[in-house]
């Protein structure tokens, strides 16, 4: 796999970074995370309209930017860096699911609203058992006339408390199905979860005989898997961006903080911690790039690339944030310093989409170990 970024990628990175620096600085993040929704809907609509982030991978014909996993890599690295409180991951997941599973008509119906930021779309697949694994779906859909009826609990739905529509995954007689549920439909109840990470919110969803429309035809398992893996790849990029920012913060602090008449970064104890963070961030970057380029090329084993990225970035992302906090000393333990926001995001990103151990086990199977 060769990693080639063009000028358009640099331009994209600059655009996103400039936008986020201006519109989602730390103060904005703190305001958004203290709000009930957990994000600023106006900001998301502007990100959708001005720089096309909502419909990043939505084809242009449906109002999107028509980009792919490598562009998503660039965007999510920047989103991770800024901790912007926006429903980017949920939207990216949903867009990929619609593209993989939906018919042309489904795409035409769902994607324009998603791309414009008019309607938030999210995916619900974790069942009451709490397992992040498309192989573990216990909720079932029942046929009722032309449509379907859904009953059950879906957990940890990204931005589920504010989504306008939900794509709920359920078992059907012919494999997995993806069902479009309007958030205001009768029988839908959802509960915003108090999060460890205040910058990305989750909700539990309960459906009680909710009428739902199925996307596409036949078993959606393979398409869902691809969309799921691509979303995890984007998350790995986000984790990398966040970890890179933690390294920047720790390094800057180590240069400017003096104790015993020296910058603390001149002490090997701190310097070597920073070096170890650099190593981790570089390996995370390799992992995230590899996953994105494999996804974009269609060559290579997407599952292997993504599970490698997932298992490494989940653990290293947290370790980097935790050690960066340590380098900040007491300051890093205060609410007013931003490092704890990264720590909490890192832990929550580690917990989303399954543990590193779980992904390594699947890797072992793929590697015939």
């Amino acid at each position, binding site marked *: 796999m060769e990693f080639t970024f063009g000028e358009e990628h640099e331009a994209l990175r600059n655009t996103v970074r400039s936008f986020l620096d201006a519109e989602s600085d730390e103060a904005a993040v703190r305001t958004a995370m203290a709000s009930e929704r957990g994000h600023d809907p106006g900001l998301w609509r502007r990100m959708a309209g001005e720089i096309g982030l909502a419909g990043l991978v939505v084809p242009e014909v449906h109002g999107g930017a028509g980009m792919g996993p490598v562009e998503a890599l660039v965007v999510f690295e920047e989103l991770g860096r800024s901790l912007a409180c926006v429903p980017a991951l949920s939207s990216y997941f949903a867009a990929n699911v619609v593209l993989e599973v939906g018919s042309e008509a489904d795409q035409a119906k769902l994607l324009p609203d998603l791309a414009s930021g008019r309607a938030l779309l999210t995916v619900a697949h974790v069942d009451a058992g*709490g*397992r992040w694994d498309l192989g573990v779906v216990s909720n079932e859909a029942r046929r009722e006339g032309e449509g379907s009826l859904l009953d059950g609990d879906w957990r940890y739905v990204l931005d589920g408390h504010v989504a306008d529509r939900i794509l709920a995954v359920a078992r059907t007689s012919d494999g997995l199905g993806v069902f479009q549920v309007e958030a205001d439909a009768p029988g839908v109840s959802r509960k915003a979860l108090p*999060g460890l990470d*205040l910058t990305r919110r989750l909700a539990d969803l309960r459906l009680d005989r909710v009428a739902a429309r199925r996307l596409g035809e036949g078993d959606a398992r393979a398409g869902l898997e691809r969309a799921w893996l691509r979303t995890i790849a984007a998350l790995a990029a986000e984790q990398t961006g966040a970890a890179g920012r933690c390294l920047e913060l720790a390094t800057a602090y180590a240069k400017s903080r003096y104790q*015993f*008449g020296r910058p603390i970064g001149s002490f090997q*104890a701190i310097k070597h911690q920073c070096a170890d963070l650099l190593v981790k961030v570089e390996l995370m970057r390799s992992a995230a790039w590899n996953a994105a380029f494999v996804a974009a090329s269609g060559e290579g084993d997407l599952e292997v690339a993504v599970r490698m990225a997932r298992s490494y970035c989940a653990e290293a992302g947290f370790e980097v944030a935790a050690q960066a906090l340590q380098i900040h000393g*007491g300051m890093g333990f205060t609410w007013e310093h931003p490092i704890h926001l990264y720590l909490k995001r890192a832990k929550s990103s580690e917990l989303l989409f399954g*543990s590193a151990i779980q992904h390594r*086990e699947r890797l072992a199977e793929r590697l015939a170990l």
Partner: protein
Amino acid sequence: MSGGGEAIGEEALRARVRELLAAAHPDEVDRVTFRRAQYDHGLAWVHFPEGYGGLGLSPGLQAIVDDEIARHARTTYADLVLNPIGIGMGAPTVLAYAPEAYKQALLPRIFTAEDVWCQLFSEPGAGSDVAGLATRAVRDGDDWIVNGQKVWASLAHRASWAMLLARTDPDKPKHDGLSYFLLDMRSPGVEVRPLYQITGDAEFNEVFLNDVRIPGDRILGKEGAGWRVAITTLMNERVAIGGYSRPGQGMAEKLLRLWREEGPSSPRGAQGRSAAEIAVLRDEVVRVHVESELLGITNQRTKDAMRAGTPGPEGSVAKLVQAELNKEITELALSVIGSDALVYETGYPLERVEAGERSLREFAKHDFLRSRANSIEGGTSEVMRNILGERMLGLPGEPRADKDVPWKEIPRGRA
């Protein structure tokens, strides 16, 4: 049994406690009345001299007093919780350094917790390097005028008195220009603000000192000799901390309970985990349990060695291991909880609240965040490794940029 030549033996001491209880019984009188009587009987700090709440005995005998009170009373006034800094660190410092009038005025009110105490040493620019602090105290006639900012002051919002370390001579090398003051926290110019932590709690405070006036007789030790007084305080901090129960083992025990009650083999914790996943997690759980047990044994060895008069490096090891282990244990607890660790039920209050009832899960999640500070507070793990390397193993120190130069010339960056 004990090594010191005691003025009175254990039985006589128990008898004296029973005299106290006859005079004032905790089940019958209020806290202040009882504790004042305990002080007057010399049973507050038995190792303090007579007339200062003590009897001149060895400190180990305090346990006899507590035991005898507990045998005869249902009520125990756990004042170490109300006024830990005053009782553990303030009192010995006052005893060693304060003028007689202050000893008489302050010591009983410390013991009754009528006066809560706090410690004002750390500053935003002086963390690991406490002696580098910048708060200035300038003479004004007989008084001192103090300006500066202190941080990490537990209980400052409740305190009547503070132990304050300030710089009185910036032209001297850093340790030599410090003086130690008793600060009345009710003085004008003292402003206390809660310092919110990443947990959303405020265990600590920032204290701003703006032209705060301190009478000249409230200096402890000589002007410029404050560092020596501070060492008395800090040594008692270690003793006080050493007296706490085993927090790390507490955490590891919680982890084992969490595993048994809500772990992968429980309905709530199953989460579809595979046998292999469970095996990997369990191996880690046992590993940290073992380390935690070994830490407990190490602490036990320290106590035995101190009793045998041959203290080794074990005590300093404990702080480091405990801090690092607490982080590991709580990280692992979140892994055991699994997806549900995404949910933080207690939220981030950002106001001064006492913790309410918490489930095992809620404890684990809170401890996960709280333990981040364990390797920072009371000496960072980096400082602990320096201490172990230099004081225990005798490895040479680093070249120093801040020795033998006037404090004001020490590089300070933009702290």
